[in-house]
């Protein structure tokens, strides 16, 4: 649904949801920059670490929550970013719709998998498959 044409500060207000997506992208990027610095420092800490060290790292609630937030915000951001890329280069409506659906499915699956693994590790669950599919 398009809204009627409207101007704010002599700039046309977007008729659909484009401006909202743009704002979400900026907010996500703003959150991802400090989280990215934290990811770099975490990567430095855990590089070459043994299993016990990594397992102990996940038992910290702060680490687990920050990593889960990073995964959720990043895959949300990546989904919007790939949407822009697909819309820029793919012009046949059917191909575009298919690729956008694929991008969304991949991002949701990766975000869900990340949270699943992080929650298990944070709770100190037994190593997978742990009964799944066994």
């Amino acid at each position, binding site marked *: 649904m398009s809204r009627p044409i409207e101007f704010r500060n002599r700039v046309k207000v977007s008729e659909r949801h484009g401006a909202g997506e743009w704002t979400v992208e900026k907010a996500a990027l703003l959150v991802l920059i400090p989280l990215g610095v934290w990811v770099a420092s975490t990567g430095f800490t855990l590089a070459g670490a043994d*299993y016990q060290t990594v397992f102990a790292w996940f038992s910290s609630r702060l680490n687990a929550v920050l990593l889960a937030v990073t995964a959720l915000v990043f895959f949300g951001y990546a989904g919007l970013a790939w949407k822009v890329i697909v819309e820029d*280069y793919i012009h*046949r409506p059917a191909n575009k719709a298919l690729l956008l659906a694929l991008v969304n499915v991949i991002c949701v699956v990766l975000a869900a998998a990340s949270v699943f693994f992080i929650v298990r590790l944070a709770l100190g669950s037994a190593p*997978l498959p742990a009964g799944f599919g066994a």
Partner: protein
Amino acid sequence: MTHPAPSSGDARDDQTGRFVTQPNGRVRPLSPHLQVWRWHVTMTASILFRVTIGAATVGAMIAVAWLAAVAFGPDAYADALAFAASPFGLFIGFGLTVVLFSFLLNGARHLINDTGAALRVGPANLLSNISVWGPVPLAVLFWVLLFVTERVSL
């Protein structure tokens, strides 16, 4: 003087992006801006940010695979660590750090420019040059520190 014909002769079937559909439904050729604009470092920074997001998506998939390896227990983690410590694994690891620093620097540049700041030629060039070249020395420093602190070895 001859001009190469579009693939099918129908602008509506064009996949090259050389035609755009106007809001009134008419199909018109896109302005030939890429042919007439002199190359500029701001263009490199902009293109590299898009490339970085693509590479960061692949990097995030590798990170999820690492999470899976930890969640699948010590044996799976040992396999993942052995791969990461192999020459090819270290090469991938170095690439991932370049991508991460590129995401941070270029993302910061993008956010600053999105507010309308630093869009004059001098500051825009400065931020673009930092975003384009900065990730490489930062990644080298990161890996030098990893080797010096003996977290990683060949």
